[in-house]
């Protein structure tokens, strides 16, 4: 692996550009390099690992028991990538993708590193941009002191830092219990875990139990749950959450079985599962479908994780949540696909090499459905019932405004809502409001999220400074890549 420190060091073009250095991107890049492709792997973080293995080679946390063995497994994935011939650009954000006008079938991508931008060519692209936490809009979630559970995990992994005061963890899903256990092991003072898993989900998940019993999740999940429950105060069946404070968080109010409770706290960590990060694939023009079991928009992919745009594949949790181990395997399969499209691997050889990887992937995905059904968020945490709840954090648009526009003004979809209320037009480009806006419109109009649609996004998918754009070589194609 050759690391890149400045954007000038990059070649004009590569066979394959992989976006994202999580398990999917690292495995895709390593495999594709082993198959003889020239690879650039770009990731906006300073070190490889993605979300699960964040900072695995640089973390200051030396006590291995805190983060757990699953975390340290990432070191092998990074090591394999480091042995490969791929080029690695850390701290490098990829912000646009478009067709290369001079080379049919190939792409041009906009990249920025250290405040300098360049347009780089690629014959094939694998988006391994992973997942983000599902938005969790409750009254007061914009107060300083309220963060996502993932944020606390990132602070722990990459900076060895934990919340310093009384901490409340609220929400549902396997990652919530994992984080509770990790923070407790690191010495964080956890006042309570407010569990919002709807009890009605249990019966819905029953049908998926046989697969779950044969899945790798079972033992792991039970262990997480039991350790967290043994050590911490668990409040289950929580149906409402409100964060309050003047200028910063002071307490959280909750409801359980019609009773209300208040906990004074300095930090509130929210989490209700993860959803694919679709901003890049959406802006690239890939088709997405609404997956009702994962309750999220998921890009449409074929057996090689190719999207509906020929030449762009999507691997890892970005192609539907499957977890870290399956992300790595999906990366491998996407790499076989890209190599074969580039003529480096004939189809028979591609299929032969991919067969054992697919078998392994099937095993890893077994039991996922049970988790999806059991931890599907309650409706009131997807579409906030209280009008004053902020939905679009950037433009400060509330649930009441969105419901009103859907009802009174007859706004039928998120793009029209954007034009009326500016939701989704701030710097996060809808990442934190999109799913909620869709949910509220669907609820108000009596339709489904699938019928309501999602924001139509355009590059640049991350803000780029004028200085960066001005410094780009102004070929016709590069202008088009930015202004579309």
């Amino acid at each position, binding site marked *: 692996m050759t690391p890149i420190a400045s954007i000038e060091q990059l070649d004009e073009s590569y066979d394959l550009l992989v976006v994202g250095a999580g398990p999917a991107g690292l495995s895709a890049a390593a495999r594709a390099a082993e198959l003889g492709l020239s690879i650039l792997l770009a990731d*906006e*973080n*300073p070190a490889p690992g993605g*979300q699960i293995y964040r900072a695995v080679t*640089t973390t*200051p*946390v*030396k*006590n291995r028991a*805190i983060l757990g063995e699953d975390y340290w497994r990432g070191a092998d994935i990074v090591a394999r990538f480091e042995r490969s011939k791929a080029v690695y650009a850390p*701290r490098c*954000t990829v912000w646009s993708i478009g067709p290369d006008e001079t080379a049919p079938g190939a792409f041009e991508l906009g990249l920025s590193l250290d*405040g300098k931008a360049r347009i780089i060519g690629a014959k094939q692209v694998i988006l391994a941009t992973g997942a*983000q*936490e599902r938005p969790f809009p409750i009254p007061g979630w*914009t107060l*300083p*002191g*309220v*963060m*996502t559970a*993932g*944020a606390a995990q*990132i*602070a*722990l992994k*990459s*900076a*060895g*830092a*934990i*919340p*310093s*005061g009384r901490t409340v963890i609220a929400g549902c899903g396997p990652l919530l219990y994992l984080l509770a256990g990790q923070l407790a092991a*690191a*010495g964080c003072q956890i006042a309570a875990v407010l569990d919002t898993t709807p009890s009605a989900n249990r019966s819905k998940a029953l049908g998926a139990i046989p697969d779950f019993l044969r899945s790798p999740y079972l033992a792991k999940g039970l262990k997480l749950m039991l350790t967290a429950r043994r050590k911490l105060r668990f409040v289950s069946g929580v149906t409402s959450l409100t964060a309050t404070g003047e*200028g*910063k968080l002071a307490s959280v109010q909750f409801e359980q079985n019609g009773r209300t409770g208040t906990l004074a706290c*300095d*930090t509130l960590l929210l989490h209700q599962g993860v959803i694919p*990060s679709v901003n890049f694939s959406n802006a690239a023009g890939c088709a997405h479908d609404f997956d009702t079991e994962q309750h999220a928009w998921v890009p449409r992919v074929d057996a090689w994780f190719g999207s509906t745009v020929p030449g762009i594949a999507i691997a890892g949790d970005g192609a539907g949540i499957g977890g870290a181990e399956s992300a790595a395997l999906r990366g491998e399969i996407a790499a076989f696909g890209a190599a074969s499209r580039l003529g480096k691997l004939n189809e028979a050889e591609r299929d032969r090499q991919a067969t054992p990887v697919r078998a392994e992937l099937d095993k890893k995905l077994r039991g996922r459905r049970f988790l999806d059904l059991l931890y599907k968020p309650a409706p009131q945490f997807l579409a906030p019932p209280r009008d004053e709840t902020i939905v679009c*954090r*950037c*433009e*400060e648009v509330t649930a009441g405004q969105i419901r009103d526009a859907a009802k009174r003004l007859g706004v039928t979809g998120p793009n029209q809502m954007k034009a009326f209320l500016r939701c989704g037009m*701030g*710097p*996060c480009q809808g*990442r*934190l409001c999109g799913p909620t806006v869709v949910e509220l419109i669907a609820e108000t109009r009596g339709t489904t999220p699938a019928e309501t649609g999602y924001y139509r996004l355009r590059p640049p998918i991350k*803000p780029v*400074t*004028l*200085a960066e754009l001005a410094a780009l070589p102004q070929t016709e194609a590069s202008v088009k890549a930015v202004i579309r």
Partner: protein
Amino acid sequence: MFRPIADLAASGALSFTFDGRPMTARAGDTVAAALLVNGITACRETPVSDTPRAPYCLMGVCFDCLVVIDGIGNRQGCLVPLAEGMRIETQHGRRHLTEASE
């Protein structure tokens, strides 16, 4: 708001300022992490209502960690590694064209 875990030294190796106040943090931390371990509650005020905000996701998604770094605004603190001597400032409201971004 945040503190280093027990087996990490509390004071860091890099010096920087936040709104003119001198601070230190561990080399390897991002700007957002450095602010959190220095007890900073809010790092920006929103353009719409001037309400204080703090880093929310730490993974580049929410943009609530926007700060001014060495005179350049709209930097995502959770993605920028801290460097010796950095001048970090609260980002107040909307951005305006400055010499650095012209």
